[in-house]
């Protein structure tokens, strides 16, 4: 949808170009994150899309149309723009701030008022309390919500966001990120999101473009980039906890395996044989009415074969070792350690649909592409 073709930007009086021969195609309806160290040209790229800056050479096209042939004010009215410093007009109320672009489009008053209210609610702000306030009366997080609402006022198909959550505290930032992701599921905008924080990039991006000193180093999904960093720059930029970061991309159901063996409590003494028959190393135990009691590994069974009561106790120690399929792998890993258990039962609602071990997690993270 947005296409950058051989873009170079050389600022006057700078030795090196801020952006050098960049070609990048930004897919429609997804979040594309531009990430890289400070000063690598991210903002410059973003601002060439809405013509706040003109490239020295190369073309930017949106839906096939060269932006340099459009009226720049018209172009910008149709593209949401959010910056770290927010830039709310301090002499206008929140409602008036959100209404700026609709007013540029000359919407009728009632339509503007309705849309403003809708956006304030959508951004999770208190309608009555917020509408008439001035920006200086809001917290940083609230102001940035207004900034996002303002950019979405006329429902533009494209949003450019330049370190939008960089100035808010980490807790508020996390919230804002989550909400943007939730919102994006519904609104499916083409979002170009600039950040210098690789964690934010991995969390927010459908695709990530990594830059170093004005040059595109690698473009790909977070998974591709974490799995195959192209060079040592990318590797260093990601950090030593690359694998842990990658874990964050997955949920329990991505790595789990099917449950091999279910055993009734009354059949506990035959559990070993049943595991052998099923070719699995773990059995989940159910009581007479079908409630889950926990699990038992083949090794545990072999060690305590004679003592049924002891085995039962062992099973009950893992009574809590069940998680929902939506649990992230780092959380699952943490729970495995916390329960000191070899397996976690994976639940879908109240139904046991799989199991997960350390080995499953390891295999999943190191699996080859296409496996």
């Amino acid at each position, binding site marked *: 949808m947005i296409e950058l073709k051989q873009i170079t930007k050389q600022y006057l009086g700078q030795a090196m170009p801020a952006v050098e021969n960049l070609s990048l195609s930004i897919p429609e309806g997804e979040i594309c994150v531009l990430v890289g160290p400070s000063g690598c040209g991210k903002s410059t790229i973003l601002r060439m899309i809405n013509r706040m800056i003109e490239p020295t050479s190369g073309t930017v096209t949106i839906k096939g149309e060269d932006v340099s042939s459009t009226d720049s004010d018209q*172009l*910008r009215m149709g593209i949401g723009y959010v*910056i770290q410093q927010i830039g709310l007009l*301090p*002499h*206008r109320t929140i409602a008036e701030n959100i209404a700026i*672009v609709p007013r540029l489009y000359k919407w009728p008053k009632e339509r503007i008022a309705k849309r403003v209210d809708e956006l304030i609610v959508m951004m999770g702000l208190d309608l009555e309390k917020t509408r008439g306030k*001035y920006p200086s009366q809001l917290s940083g997080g609230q102001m940035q919500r207004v900034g996002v609402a303002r950019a979405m006022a006329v429902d533009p198909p494209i949003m450019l966001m330049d370190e939008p959550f960089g100035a808010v505290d980490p807790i508020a930032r996390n919230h804002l990120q989550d909400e943007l992701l939730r919102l994006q599921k519904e609104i499916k905008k083409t979002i170009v999101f600039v950040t210098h924080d690789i964690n934010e990039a991995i969390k927010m991006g459908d695709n990530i473009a990594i830059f170093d000193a004005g040059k595109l180093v690698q473009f790909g999904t977070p998974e591709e980039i974490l799995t195959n960093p192209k060079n040592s720059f990318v590797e260093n930029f990601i950090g030593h906890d690359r694998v842990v970061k990658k874990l964050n991309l997955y949920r329990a159901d991505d790595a789990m395996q099917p449950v091999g063996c279910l055993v009734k409590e009354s059949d506990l003494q035959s559990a070993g044989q049943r595991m052998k028959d099923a070719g699995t190393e773990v059995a989940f135990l159910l009581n007479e009415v079908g409630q889950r009691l926990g699990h038992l590994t083949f090794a545990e069974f072999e060690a305590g074969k004679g003592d049924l009561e002891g085995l039962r106790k062992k099973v009950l120690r893992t009574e809590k070792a069940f998680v929902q399929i939506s649990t992230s792998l780092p959380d699952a890993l943490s729970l495995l350690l916390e329960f000191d258990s070899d397996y976690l039962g994976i639940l879908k609602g109240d139904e046991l649909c799989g199991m997960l071990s350390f080995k499953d997690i390891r295999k999943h993270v190191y699996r080859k592409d296409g496996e």
Partner: protein
Amino acid sequence: MSWENFRFALFEKAPEALFEHSMIVVITITIAILISVPLGVLLTRPKYKGLGLVTLNVLNVLQAIPGLAIIALALPILGLGMKPAVVALLFQSLLPIVRNTIAGLIGVSPDVKEAACGMGMSQRRILLEVEIPLAMPIILSGIRTATVYVVSIGTLAALIGAGGLGNLIMGGLALFRPEYLLVGAGLGAIMAITLERSLSYLERRITPPGMRVS
């Protein structure tokens, strides 16, 4: 001191003098605003930014010339009357307004301007709806300085036949009538203080509610 003289100065002479003085002030300040604010705006546009400093320096020099000298210089060039007085006073009332217009406009947060531009507001719209409203309190404070200045230096304009409260003061000096002096100077002071107070009230009133320091 005689009551008779005082009464005569206050009721027979002062109304006309006050009217002439107000005219000088109103005309001078109006023209000064019409020149200075656009000049200040122009000098803060990226294209003309380089000229800003030069202009400010020129105006600084003009401001530094004593008011009496300017008025004296105006006489041989422009002759007698209210017109040369206004021109002479104008020179000196430009600086505070231009300077404050520039300061006010430069002081507008670049983030606010960038956001406004990024939303597709035209440069004209940004100037009228964002920059000027935000700079207004500072511009007004420049106008206030210039006004007080014109009211007081305006009394010297009588020297070149412009009339005004200066007439009463000069008359008082020439005829040894302290009552005239008192009425002229007193009314001048009252006028200056009244204008100063009302403009600073206005300044507070037009400060956008979101920006008032409460």
